[in-house]
Protein backbone atom coordinates (compact mmCIF):
# COMPACT_ATOMS: atom_id res chain seq x y z
CA UNK A 1 0.00 0.00 0.00
CA UNK A 2 1.64 3.30 -1.04
CA UNK A 3 1.83 6.13 1.49
CA UNK A 4 -1.10 7.87 -0.10
CA UNK A 5 -4.05 9.63 1.49
CA UNK A 6 -7.10 9.86 -0.74
CA UNK A 7 -9.93 12.27 0.06
CA UNK A 8 -13.19 11.31 -1.60
CA UNK A 9 -15.31 14.38 -2.07
CA UNK A 10 -19.07 14.52 -1.92
CA UNK A 11 -20.69 16.61 -4.60
CA UNK A 12 -24.32 17.23 -5.25
CA UNK A 13 -25.47 18.80 -8.49
CA UNK A 14 -21.95 19.96 -9.23
CA UNK A 15 -21.34 21.57 -5.85
CA UNK A 16 -19.02 20.61 -3.04
CA UNK A 17 -20.48 20.63 0.45
CA UNK A 18 -18.67 22.48 3.22
CA UNK A 19 -17.90 19.23 5.02
CA UNK A 20 -16.10 18.04 1.87
CA UNK A 21 -13.78 21.05 2.15
CA UNK A 22 -13.35 20.26 5.83
CA UNK A 23 -12.30 16.73 4.89
CA UNK A 24 -9.68 18.14 2.50
CA UNK A 25 -8.42 20.27 5.40
CA UNK A 26 -8.21 17.06 7.47
CA UNK A 27 -6.29 15.36 4.67
CA UNK A 28 -3.87 18.27 4.41
CA UNK A 29 -3.32 18.22 8.18
CA UNK A 30 -2.58 14.46 8.16
CA UNK A 31 -0.33 14.80 5.10
CA UNK A 32 1.63 17.56 6.86
CA UNK A 33 2.16 15.34 9.91
CA UNK A 34 2.94 12.09 8.13
CA UNK A 35 4.64 13.33 4.98
CA UNK A 36 2.31 11.12 2.94
CA UNK A 37 1.02 12.11 -0.49
CA UNK A 38 -2.43 13.67 -0.59
CA UNK A 39 -4.79 13.04 -3.50
CA UNK A 40 -8.49 13.67 -3.99
CA UNK A 41 -11.23 12.01 -5.99
CA UNK A 42 -14.64 13.20 -7.00
CA UNK A 43 -17.13 10.50 -7.90
CA UNK A 44 -20.16 10.78 -10.15
CA UNK A 45 -21.32 11.44 -13.66
CA UNK A 46 -19.93 14.57 -15.35
CA UNK A 47 -17.69 15.69 -12.48
CA UNK A 48 -14.80 17.13 -14.53
CA UNK A 49 -15.65 20.72 -13.58
CA UNK A 50 -15.50 19.97 -9.86
CA UNK A 51 -12.29 18.02 -10.32
CA UNK A 52 -10.60 21.03 -11.87
CA UNK A 53 -11.97 23.27 -9.11
CA UNK A 54 -10.33 20.92 -6.61
CA UNK A 55 -7.07 20.94 -8.55
CA UNK A 56 -6.39 24.50 -7.36
CA UNK A 57 -5.90 23.18 -3.82
CA UNK A 58 -2.72 21.76 -2.35
CA UNK A 59 -3.13 18.21 -3.67
CA UNK A 60 -0.73 15.95 -5.55
CA UNK A 61 -3.41 14.70 -7.89
CA UNK A 62 -7.14 14.83 -8.52
CA UNK A 63 -9.19 12.00 -9.99
CA UNK A 64 -12.56 12.34 -11.67
CA UNK A 65 -14.15 8.92 -11.18
CA UNK A 66 -16.83 8.71 -13.84
CA UNK A 67 -19.74 6.46 -14.72
CA UNK A 68 -23.27 7.29 -15.84
CA UNK A 69 -24.42 4.66 -13.34
CA UNK A 70 -23.19 6.85 -10.45
CA UNK A 71 -26.08 9.25 -10.95
CA UNK A 72 -28.43 9.10 -9.09
CA UNK A 73 -26.55 7.85 -6.05
CA UNK A 74 -26.95 4.20 -5.05
CA UNK A 75 -24.79 2.32 -2.53
CA UNK A 76 -24.33 -0.53 -5.02
CA UNK A 77 -22.86 1.67 -7.77
CA UNK A 78 -20.69 3.73 -5.41
CA UNK A 79 -19.23 0.72 -3.63
CA UNK A 80 -18.63 -1.07 -6.92
CA UNK A 81 -17.01 1.93 -8.63
CA UNK A 82 -14.80 2.87 -5.69
CA UNK A 83 -13.70 -0.70 -5.11
CA UNK A 84 -12.58 -0.89 -8.72
CA UNK A 85 -10.93 2.52 -8.49
CA UNK A 86 -9.06 1.71 -5.26
CA UNK A 87 -7.80 -1.57 -6.65
CA UNK A 88 -6.21 0.34 -9.56
CA UNK A 89 -5.14 3.36 -7.51
CA UNK A 90 -4.40 2.07 -4.03
CA UNK A 91 -4.28 4.38 -1.02
CA UNK A 92 -3.33 3.70 2.56
CA UNK A 93 -5.90 6.05 4.04
CA UNK A 94 -9.23 7.05 2.48
CA UNK A 95 -11.00 10.05 4.01
CA UNK A 96 -14.61 11.09 3.50
CA UNK A 97 -17.11 13.44 5.10
CA UNK A 98 -19.55 11.70 7.48
CA UNK A 99 -22.65 12.49 5.43
CA UNK A 100 -25.80 10.38 5.19
CA UNK A 101 -24.66 9.31 1.73
CA UNK A 102 -21.19 8.27 2.84
CA UNK A 103 -22.44 6.33 5.85
CA UNK A 104 -24.82 4.54 3.48
CA UNK A 105 -22.04 3.05 1.33
CA UNK A 106 -18.73 3.19 3.23
CA UNK A 107 -19.30 0.10 5.41
CA UNK A 108 -20.20 -1.82 2.24
CA UNK A 109 -17.12 -0.58 0.39
CA UNK A 110 -14.78 -1.30 3.30
CA UNK A 111 -16.23 -4.79 3.68
CA UNK A 112 -15.92 -5.47 -0.05
CA UNK A 113 -12.20 -4.70 0.37
CA UNK A 114 -12.08 -6.78 3.58
CA UNK A 115 -11.11 -3.79 5.65
CA UNK A 116 -12.75 -1.33 8.01
CA UNK A 117 -13.96 2.23 8.46
CA UNK A 118 -13.63 4.38 11.56
CA UNK A 119 -16.79 6.45 11.41
CA UNK A 120 -17.79 9.84 12.75
CA UNK A 121 -14.26 11.03 13.58
CA UNK A 122 -13.80 14.43 15.25
CA UNK A 123 -10.01 14.64 15.46
CA UNK A 124 -6.77 12.95 14.51
CA UNK A 125 -3.26 12.70 16.01
CA UNK A 126 -0.07 11.14 14.71
CA UNK A 127 1.90 9.69 17.61
CA UNK A 128 4.95 7.44 17.40
CA UNK A 129 4.24 6.50 13.81
CA UNK A 130 0.62 5.65 14.59
CA UNK A 131 -2.49 7.51 13.52
CA UNK A 132 -5.06 7.88 16.29
CA UNK A 133 -8.56 8.90 15.36
CA UNK A 134 -10.80 10.47 17.96
CA UNK A 135 -14.51 9.69 17.96
CA UNK A 136 -17.32 10.01 20.41
CA UNK A 137 -18.73 7.01 22.20
CA UNK A 138 -21.69 6.42 24.49
CA UNK A 139 -23.60 9.33 22.99
CA UNK A 140 -20.79 11.79 23.66
CA UNK A 141 -20.23 10.84 27.30
CA UNK A 142 -16.75 9.62 26.37
CA UNK A 143 -14.36 9.98 23.49
CA UNK A 144 -12.08 7.23 22.24
CA UNK A 145 -8.74 7.19 20.45
CA UNK A 146 -9.08 4.49 17.82
CA UNK A 147 -6.32 2.92 15.73
CA UNK A 148 -6.37 0.65 12.70
CA UNK A 149 -5.03 -2.90 12.49
CA UNK A 150 -4.43 -4.97 9.38
CA UNK A 151 -3.20 -3.83 6.02
CA UNK A 152 -5.82 -1.34 4.84
CA UNK A 153 -6.87 0.61 2.91
CA UNK A 154 -8.32 2.29 5.98
CA UNK A 155 -11.45 4.38 5.71
CA UNK A 156 -12.20 7.36 7.94
CA UNK A 157 -15.32 9.52 7.93
CA UNK A 158 -15.17 12.99 9.50
CA UNK A 159 -18.00 14.59 11.40
CA UNK A 160 -19.20 18.08 10.38
CA UNK A 161 -17.11 20.89 11.83
CA UNK A 162 -14.13 18.75 12.92
CA UNK A 163 -11.80 20.67 10.64
CA UNK A 164 -12.12 24.16 9.22
CA UNK A 165 -13.04 24.54 5.59
CA UNK A 166 -11.33 27.94 5.45
CA UNK A 167 -8.04 26.28 6.41
CA UNK A 168 -7.79 24.44 3.08
CA UNK A 169 -4.49 25.41 1.49
CA UNK A 170 -4.23 26.39 -2.13
CA UNK A 171 -1.59 24.66 -4.25
CA UNK A 172 1.46 26.35 -5.77
CA UNK A 173 0.40 25.04 -9.17
CA UNK A 174 -2.74 23.29 -10.38
CA UNK A 175 -2.75 19.58 -9.53
CA UNK A 176 -2.97 17.18 -12.47
CA UNK A 177 -6.49 15.88 -13.09
CA UNK A 178 -7.01 12.33 -14.31
CA UNK A 179 -10.35 11.02 -15.45
CA UNK A 180 -10.93 7.39 -14.53
CA UNK A 181 -13.90 5.75 -16.23
CA UNK A 182 -15.23 2.89 -14.16
CA UNK A 183 -17.48 0.14 -15.38
CA UNK A 184 -20.63 -0.58 -13.39
CA UNK A 185 -22.13 -3.60 -15.18
CA UNK A 186 -25.84 -4.36 -15.52
CA UNK A 187 -27.29 -5.99 -12.46
CA UNK A 188 -24.91 -4.37 -9.96
CA UNK A 189 -27.39 -1.66 -8.98
CA UNK A 190 -30.40 -3.20 -7.30
CA UNK A 191 -32.06 -0.17 -5.70
CA UNK A 192 -34.15 2.30 -7.66
CA UNK A 193 -34.01 5.65 -5.91
CA UNK A 194 -36.74 8.23 -6.56
CA UNK A 195 -36.38 12.00 -6.46
CA UNK A 196 -35.17 13.61 -3.25
CA UNK A 197 -37.91 15.70 -1.67
CA UNK A 198 -38.75 17.82 1.34
CA UNK A 199 -41.71 16.96 3.52
CA UNK A 200 -44.57 19.44 3.01
CA UNK A 201 -43.80 23.01 3.88
CA UNK A 202 -41.47 23.89 6.70
CA UNK A 203 -43.77 25.96 8.87
CA UNK A 204 -40.90 27.51 10.73
CA UNK A 205 -37.42 28.50 9.59
CA UNK A 206 -35.39 28.19 12.76
CA UNK A 207 -32.21 29.24 10.97
CA UNK A 208 -33.47 32.84 11.09
CA UNK A 209 -34.29 32.82 14.81
CA UNK A 210 -32.05 34.90 17.08
CA UNK A 211 -33.15 33.14 20.23
CA UNK A 212 -33.99 29.45 20.47
CA UNK A 213 -35.26 27.59 23.51
CA UNK A 214 -34.77 23.90 22.83
CA UNK A 215 -36.08 20.94 24.79
CA UNK A 216 -34.79 17.38 25.14
CA UNK A 217 -35.76 14.20 26.96
CA UNK A 218 -35.40 15.98 30.29
CA UNK A 219 -38.76 17.64 29.67
CA UNK A 220 -40.23 14.20 30.50
CA UNK A 221 -43.84 14.69 29.36
CA UNK A 222 -45.65 16.37 26.51
CA UNK A 223 -47.58 18.66 28.83
CA UNK A 224 -44.31 20.10 30.14
CA UNK A 225 -43.49 21.49 26.70
CA UNK A 226 -45.76 24.37 27.69
CA UNK A 227 -43.21 25.49 30.28
CA UNK A 228 -40.51 25.73 27.62
CA UNK A 229 -42.93 27.56 25.35
CA UNK A 230 -43.56 30.16 28.05
CA UNK A 231 -39.82 30.71 28.40
CA UNK A 232 -39.41 31.03 24.63
CA UNK A 233 -42.30 33.53 24.53
CA UNK A 234 -40.86 35.55 27.39
CA UNK A 235 -37.50 35.73 25.59
CA UNK A 236 -39.12 36.45 22.23
CA UNK A 237 -37.58 33.30 20.78
CA UNK A 238 -38.56 30.16 18.92
CA UNK A 239 -39.21 26.77 20.45
CA UNK A 240 -37.17 23.82 19.15
CA UNK A 241 -36.29 20.30 20.25
CA UNK A 242 -33.91 17.39 20.01
CA UNK A 243 -34.90 14.38 17.96
CA UNK A 244 -36.61 12.19 20.60
CA UNK A 245 -39.13 14.95 21.35
CA UNK A 246 -40.16 15.11 17.68
CA UNK A 247 -40.13 11.32 17.40
CA UNK A 248 -42.67 11.27 20.21
CA UNK A 249 -44.79 13.76 18.33
CA UNK A 250 -44.57 16.27 21.19
CA UNK A 251 -43.38 18.91 18.73
CA UNK A 252 -43.58 18.83 14.93
CA UNK A 253 -40.57 17.51 13.00
CA UNK A 254 -39.84 20.95 11.56
CA UNK A 255 -38.83 22.09 15.06
CA UNK A 256 -36.04 19.52 15.22
CA UNK A 257 -32.43 20.67 15.59
CA UNK A 258 -29.60 18.35 14.57
CA UNK A 259 -28.18 16.33 11.72
CA UNK A 260 -31.58 15.14 10.54
CA UNK A 261 -33.26 18.47 11.28
CA UNK A 262 -32.23 22.08 11.02
CA UNK A 263 -28.77 23.53 11.62
CA UNK A 264 -28.95 26.80 13.52
CA UNK A 265 -26.61 29.47 14.82
CA UNK A 266 -28.71 31.89 16.90
CA UNK A 267 -27.44 34.53 19.31
CA UNK A 268 -28.78 32.43 22.17
CA UNK A 269 -29.40 28.69 22.28
CA UNK A 270 -30.97 27.69 25.56
CA UNK A 271 -30.96 23.91 25.96
CA UNK A 272 -33.43 22.48 28.49
CA UNK A 273 -32.89 18.85 29.48
CA UNK A 274 -30.83 18.11 26.36
CA UNK A 275 -27.96 15.69 26.99
CA UNK A 276 -26.06 16.66 23.84
CA UNK A 277 -25.67 13.62 21.58
CA UNK A 278 -23.45 14.44 18.61
CA UNK A 279 -26.40 14.30 16.21
CA UNK A 280 -27.86 17.23 18.13
CA UNK A 281 -24.62 19.12 18.74
CA UNK A 282 -23.77 19.34 15.03
CA UNK A 283 -27.00 21.26 14.51
CA UNK A 284 -26.39 23.98 17.09
CA UNK A 285 -22.75 24.24 18.10
CA UNK A 286 -22.27 27.34 15.94
CA UNK A 287 -24.61 29.29 18.23
CA UNK A 288 -23.07 32.48 19.60
CA UNK A 289 -24.05 31.72 23.18
CA UNK A 290 -25.15 28.39 24.56
CA UNK A 291 -26.90 28.03 27.90
CA UNK A 292 -27.58 24.51 29.14
CA UNK A 293 -29.82 23.43 32.00
CA UNK A 294 -29.54 19.74 32.83
CA UNK A 295 -29.72 17.68 35.98
CA UNK A 296 -26.86 15.41 34.90
CA UNK A 297 -23.57 17.18 35.57
CA UNK A 298 -21.85 14.81 33.13
CA UNK A 299 -24.14 15.66 30.21
CA UNK A 300 -22.04 16.27 27.07
CA UNK A 301 -24.01 19.47 26.35
CA UNK A 302 -22.02 21.15 29.14
CA UNK A 303 -18.82 20.75 27.13
CA UNK A 304 -19.97 23.28 24.60
CA UNK A 305 -22.06 25.47 26.92
CA UNK A 306 -21.00 29.01 27.79
CA UNK A 307 -23.27 29.03 30.83
CA UNK A 308 -24.34 25.91 32.62
CA UNK A 309 -26.88 25.17 35.29
CA UNK A 310 -26.76 21.73 36.89
CA UNK A 311 -30.20 21.22 38.28
CA UNK A 312 -33.81 20.31 37.75
CA UNK A 313 -35.24 22.35 34.90
CA UNK A 314 -38.67 22.26 36.54
CA UNK A 315 -37.23 24.15 39.52
CA UNK A 316 -35.26 26.65 37.49
CA UNK A 317 -37.41 27.52 34.50
CA UNK A 318 -40.44 28.99 36.36
CA UNK A 319 -38.39 31.60 38.27
CA UNK A 320 -36.36 32.17 35.09
CA UNK A 321 -39.54 33.08 33.17
CA UNK A 322 -40.45 35.55 35.94
CA UNK A 323 -36.98 37.12 35.94
CA UNK A 324 -36.96 37.46 32.14
CA UNK A 325 -40.36 39.15 32.24
CA UNK A 326 -39.15 41.49 34.96
CA UNK A 327 -35.98 42.35 33.05
CA UNK A 328 -37.97 43.11 29.94
CA UNK A 329 -40.31 45.28 31.99
Amino acid at each position, binding site marked *: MPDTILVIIEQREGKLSRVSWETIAAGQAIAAQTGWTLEAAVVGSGVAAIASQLAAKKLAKVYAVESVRLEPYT*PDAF*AHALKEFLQKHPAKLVLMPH*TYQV*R*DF*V*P*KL*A*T*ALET*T*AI*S*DVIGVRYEGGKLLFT*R*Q*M*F*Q*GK*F*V*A*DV*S*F*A*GSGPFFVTFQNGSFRADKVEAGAAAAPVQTVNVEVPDGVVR*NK*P*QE*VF*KEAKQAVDLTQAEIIVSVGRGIKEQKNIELARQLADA*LGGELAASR*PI*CDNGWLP*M*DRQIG*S*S*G*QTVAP*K*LYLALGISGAIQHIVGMKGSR*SIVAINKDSEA*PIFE*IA*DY*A*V*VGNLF*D*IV*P*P*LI*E*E*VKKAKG
Partner: protein
Amino acid sequence: MKILVCMKQVPQKDAPLKLNEAGTWIREDVSYEVNEPDAFALEEALRQKEKHTGEVVVVTAGPARASQVLREALAKGADRAIHLEDDAFVGLDAYNTARAIAAAIKDEKFDLIFTGLQSDDYGYAQTGVILAQILGLPHATIIMQIEKTDAGIRVKRELEAGFFQFVDMPLPAVLTIQSGINKLRYATLIGIKQAKMKPLRKVTLAEVQSAMGANLQKIEKLYLPQKSKNTEFLEGPPAEVAKKLVEKLKNEMRVI
Protein backbone atom coordinates in the same frame (compact mmCIF):
# COMPACT_ATOMS: atom_id res chain seq x y z
CA MET B 1 -42.56 -12.15 5.47
CA LYS B 2 -39.80 -13.65 7.49
CA ILE B 3 -37.97 -10.87 9.26
CA LEU B 4 -34.78 -10.90 11.34
CA VAL B 5 -34.24 -8.03 13.78
CA CYS B 6 -30.70 -7.47 15.06
CA MET B 7 -30.81 -5.97 18.54
CA LYS B 8 -28.25 -4.81 21.03
CA GLN B 9 -28.18 -4.21 24.74
CA VAL B 10 -26.53 -0.92 25.69
CA PRO B 11 -26.08 1.02 28.96
CA GLN B 12 -29.21 2.87 30.03
CA LYS B 13 -29.37 6.41 28.70
CA ASP B 14 -29.12 8.14 32.05
CA ALA B 15 -26.88 5.55 33.70
CA PRO B 16 -23.76 7.19 35.16
CA LEU B 17 -20.87 5.53 33.36
CA LYS B 18 -17.40 5.01 34.80
CA LEU B 19 -14.19 4.03 33.05
CA ASN B 20 -12.49 0.74 33.80
CA GLU B 21 -9.00 0.82 35.32
CA ALA B 22 -7.24 0.35 32.00
CA GLY B 23 -9.20 3.27 30.50
CA THR B 24 -10.25 1.15 27.54
CA TRP B 25 -13.91 0.50 28.29
CA ILE B 26 -16.62 1.35 30.78
CA ARG B 27 -17.14 -0.52 34.02
CA GLU B 28 -19.80 -3.07 33.26
CA ASP B 29 -21.68 -2.75 36.55
CA VAL B 30 -24.34 -0.45 35.12
CA SER B 31 -27.99 -0.87 34.15
CA TYR B 32 -28.68 -1.89 30.59
CA GLU B 33 -31.55 -1.48 28.17
CA VAL B 34 -32.34 -2.17 24.55
CA ASN B 35 -30.64 0.14 22.08
CA GLU B 36 -33.38 2.61 21.16
CA PRO B 37 -33.34 2.38 17.33
CA ASP B 38 -33.40 -1.43 17.68
CA ALA B 39 -36.65 -1.16 19.63
CA PHE B 40 -38.13 0.74 16.67
CA ALA B 41 -36.74 -1.90 14.30
CA LEU B 42 -38.49 -4.63 16.29
CA GLU B 43 -41.75 -2.68 16.34
CA GLU B 44 -41.57 -2.23 12.57
CA ALA B 45 -40.96 -5.95 12.07
CA LEU B 46 -43.98 -6.81 14.25
CA ARG B 47 -46.15 -4.39 12.26
CA GLN B 48 -45.00 -5.85 8.95
CA LYS B 49 -45.76 -9.33 10.20
CA GLU B 50 -49.23 -8.25 11.34
CA LYS B 51 -49.87 -6.83 7.86
CA HIS B 52 -48.37 -9.56 5.72
CA THR B 53 -48.15 -12.56 8.11
CA GLY B 54 -44.86 -14.37 8.58
CA GLU B 55 -42.31 -14.69 11.33
CA VAL B 56 -40.19 -12.30 13.40
CA VAL B 57 -36.87 -13.59 14.70
CA VAL B 58 -34.65 -11.51 16.98
CA VAL B 59 -30.91 -11.91 17.36
CA THR B 60 -28.34 -10.37 19.68
CA ALA B 61 -24.62 -10.85 20.28
CA GLY B 62 -23.55 -10.21 23.86
CA PRO B 63 -23.03 -11.62 27.35
CA ALA B 64 -25.67 -13.54 29.33
CA ARG B 65 -27.27 -10.25 30.46
CA ALA B 66 -28.19 -9.45 26.83
CA SER B 67 -30.83 -12.19 26.83
CA GLN B 68 -33.07 -9.65 28.61
CA VAL B 69 -33.39 -7.79 25.29
CA LEU B 70 -34.49 -11.00 23.57
CA ARG B 71 -36.99 -11.88 26.30
CA GLU B 72 -38.56 -8.44 26.01
CA ALA B 73 -38.75 -8.81 22.24
CA LEU B 74 -40.42 -12.21 22.57
CA ALA B 75 -42.88 -10.72 25.06
CA LYS B 76 -43.76 -8.00 22.57
CA GLY B 77 -44.51 -10.58 19.89
CA ALA B 78 -41.32 -11.87 18.28
CA ASP B 79 -41.62 -15.59 17.49
CA ARG B 80 -38.18 -16.82 18.41
CA ALA B 81 -34.73 -15.60 19.38
CA ILE B 82 -31.06 -16.30 18.73
CA HIS B 83 -28.46 -15.35 21.32
CA LEU B 84 -24.79 -15.31 20.35
CA GLU B 85 -23.70 -15.55 23.93
CA ASP B 86 -20.20 -14.66 25.03
CA ASP B 87 -18.56 -11.78 26.89
CA ALA B 88 -16.19 -11.44 23.90
CA PHE B 89 -19.01 -10.13 21.69
CA VAL B 90 -18.92 -6.81 23.58
CA GLY B 91 -15.48 -5.94 22.23
CA LEU B 92 -16.01 -6.74 18.56
CA ASP B 93 -15.72 -4.20 15.79
CA ALA B 94 -18.70 -3.86 13.46
CA TYR B 95 -17.17 -6.13 10.81
CA ASN B 96 -16.74 -9.00 13.25
CA THR B 97 -20.18 -8.50 14.80
CA ALA B 98 -21.73 -8.71 11.35
CA ARG B 99 -19.66 -11.76 10.44
CA ALA B 100 -20.70 -13.50 13.65
CA ILE B 101 -24.40 -12.79 13.03
CA ALA B 102 -24.12 -13.88 9.40
CA ALA B 103 -22.56 -17.18 10.53
CA ALA B 104 -25.30 -17.73 13.12
CA ILE B 105 -28.10 -17.37 10.54
CA LYS B 106 -26.42 -19.12 7.61
CA ASP B 107 -29.06 -21.87 7.43
CA GLU B 108 -31.99 -19.44 7.41
CA LYS B 109 -33.59 -17.39 4.66
CA PHE B 110 -35.03 -14.05 5.66
CA ASP B 111 -37.01 -11.70 3.41
CA LEU B 112 -35.96 -8.71 5.47
CA ILE B 113 -33.23 -8.03 7.99
CA PHE B 114 -33.57 -4.97 10.24
CA THR B 115 -31.05 -3.28 12.48
CA GLY B 116 -31.35 -0.02 14.34
CA LEU B 117 -29.47 2.68 12.44
CA GLN B 118 -26.76 2.86 15.09
CA SER B 119 -26.01 1.83 18.64
CA ASP B 120 -25.92 4.18 21.60
CA ASP B 121 -22.59 2.75 22.83
CA TYR B 122 -20.17 2.50 19.89
CA GLY B 123 -22.29 4.51 17.48
CA TYR B 124 -20.65 2.89 14.43
CA ALA B 125 -23.81 2.92 12.28
CA GLN B 126 -22.18 0.17 10.23
CA THR B 127 -23.20 -3.32 11.32
CA GLY B 128 -26.37 -3.52 9.20
CA VAL B 129 -24.69 -2.34 6.01
CA ILE B 130 -21.75 -4.70 6.54
CA LEU B 131 -24.16 -7.57 7.14
CA ALA B 132 -25.87 -6.78 3.82
CA GLN B 133 -22.54 -6.91 2.00
CA ILE B 134 -21.55 -10.20 3.63
CA LEU B 135 -24.90 -11.75 2.71
CA GLY B 136 -24.83 -10.25 -0.80
CA LEU B 137 -28.09 -8.36 -0.21
CA PRO B 138 -29.15 -4.85 -1.20
CA HIS B 139 -29.57 -2.40 1.66
CA ALA B 140 -30.97 1.00 2.51
CA THR B 141 -30.20 3.07 5.60
CA ILE B 142 -32.08 5.40 7.96
CA ILE B 143 -35.51 4.11 7.02
CA MET B 144 -38.68 5.93 8.07
CA GLN B 145 -41.31 3.89 6.20
CA ILE B 146 -41.67 0.48 4.54
CA GLU B 147 -44.37 -0.53 2.04
CA LYS B 148 -44.57 -3.89 0.33
CA THR B 149 -44.85 -3.65 -3.47
CA ASP B 150 -45.36 -6.25 -6.21
CA ALA B 151 -41.64 -6.30 -7.00
CA GLY B 152 -40.30 -5.99 -3.46
CA ILE B 153 -40.51 -2.99 -1.15
CA ARG B 154 -40.60 0.77 -1.31
CA VAL B 155 -38.78 2.43 1.60
CA LYS B 156 -38.50 6.04 2.70
CA ARG B 157 -34.94 7.07 3.50
CA GLU B 158 -34.21 10.03 5.69
CA LEU B 159 -31.53 12.35 4.32
CA GLU B 160 -29.92 15.41 5.86
CA ALA B 161 -31.62 18.70 6.67
CA GLY B 162 -35.22 17.56 6.36
CA PHE B 163 -34.90 15.82 2.97
CA PHE B 164 -36.27 12.36 2.19
CA GLN B 165 -36.17 9.89 -0.66
CA PHE B 166 -38.22 6.87 -1.66
CA VAL B 167 -36.23 3.87 -2.85
CA ASP B 168 -37.65 0.80 -4.57
CA MET B 169 -35.75 -2.36 -3.83
CA PRO B 170 -36.06 -6.11 -4.31
CA LEU B 171 -36.30 -8.66 -1.51
CA PRO B 172 -34.47 -10.00 0.38
CA ALA B 173 -32.92 -6.81 1.72
CA VAL B 174 -31.32 -5.26 4.79
CA LEU B 175 -32.70 -2.03 6.27
CA THR B 176 -31.35 0.13 9.08
CA ILE B 177 -34.27 1.66 10.93
CA GLN B 178 -34.46 5.22 12.27
CA SER B 179 -35.95 6.01 15.67
CA GLY B 180 -39.43 7.45 15.40
CA ILE B 181 -40.54 5.33 12.41
CA ASN B 182 -43.48 4.11 14.49
CA LYS B 183 -44.91 4.15 18.01
CA LEU B 184 -43.52 1.49 20.30
CA ARG B 185 -45.84 -1.00 21.96
CA TYR B 186 -45.58 -2.32 25.47
CA ALA B 187 -45.41 -6.01 26.27
CA THR B 188 -48.70 -7.37 27.61
CA LEU B 189 -48.95 -9.70 30.59
CA ILE B 190 -50.02 -12.51 28.27
CA GLY B 191 -47.09 -11.69 26.01
CA ILE B 192 -44.66 -11.90 28.90
CA LYS B 193 -46.14 -15.28 29.88
CA GLN B 194 -46.02 -16.63 26.33
CA ALA B 195 -42.44 -15.43 25.87
CA LYS B 196 -41.26 -18.07 28.31
CA MET B 197 -42.50 -20.81 25.96
CA LYS B 198 -40.88 -19.39 22.84
CA PRO B 199 -37.68 -20.89 21.45
CA LEU B 200 -34.38 -19.15 22.24
CA ARG B 201 -31.38 -20.68 20.49
CA LYS B 202 -27.97 -20.09 22.01
CA VAL B 203 -24.93 -19.85 19.78
CA THR B 204 -21.48 -20.09 21.31
CA LEU B 205 -18.45 -18.09 20.20
CA ALA B 206 -16.82 -21.36 19.08
CA GLU B 207 -19.67 -22.00 16.61
CA VAL B 208 -19.11 -18.76 14.71
CA GLN B 209 -15.43 -18.07 15.35
CA SER B 210 -14.22 -19.57 12.09
CA ALA B 211 -16.19 -16.89 10.24
CA MET B 212 -14.55 -14.11 12.22
CA GLY B 213 -11.10 -12.52 12.17
CA ALA B 214 -8.98 -10.14 14.19
CA ASN B 215 -10.59 -6.79 14.97
CA LEU B 216 -9.48 -4.27 12.37
CA GLN B 217 -9.90 -1.33 14.67
CA LYS B 218 -8.94 -0.93 18.27
CA ILE B 219 -9.96 1.44 21.05
CA GLU B 220 -6.59 2.53 22.44
CA LYS B 221 -8.04 4.73 25.09
CA LEU B 222 -11.43 5.88 26.32
CA TYR B 223 -11.63 9.15 28.24
CA LEU B 224 -13.81 12.07 29.21
CA PRO B 225 -14.09 14.72 26.50
CA GLN B 226 -11.89 17.75 26.95
CA LYS B 227 -13.84 20.91 27.30
CA SER B 228 -13.60 23.15 24.29
CA LYS B 229 -15.21 26.06 26.09
CA ASN B 230 -14.69 27.89 29.31
CA THR B 231 -18.06 27.07 30.80
CA GLU B 232 -19.32 29.18 33.65
CA PHE B 233 -21.44 27.18 36.07
CA LEU B 234 -24.21 29.14 37.77
CA GLU B 235 -24.94 27.77 41.22
CA GLY B 236 -27.33 28.39 44.08
CA PRO B 237 -31.02 27.99 44.83
CA PRO B 238 -33.28 28.13 41.72
CA ALA B 239 -34.48 31.70 42.28
CA GLU B 240 -30.90 32.91 42.62
CA VAL B 241 -29.71 30.95 39.57
CA ALA B 242 -32.58 32.45 37.57
CA LYS B 243 -31.49 35.96 38.61
CA LYS B 244 -27.84 35.26 37.74
CA LEU B 245 -28.78 33.80 34.38
CA VAL B 246 -30.98 36.78 33.44
CA GLU B 247 -28.13 39.08 34.41
CA LYS B 248 -25.88 37.15 31.97
CA LEU B 249 -28.55 37.15 29.27
CA LYS B 250 -28.78 40.92 29.63
CA ASN B 251 -25.20 42.03 30.16
CA GLU B 252 -22.99 39.31 28.72
CA MET B 253 -25.01 37.64 25.95
CA ARG B 254 -27.06 40.81 25.31
CA VAL B 255 -30.18 39.05 24.18
CA ILE B 256 -32.58 40.83 26.54
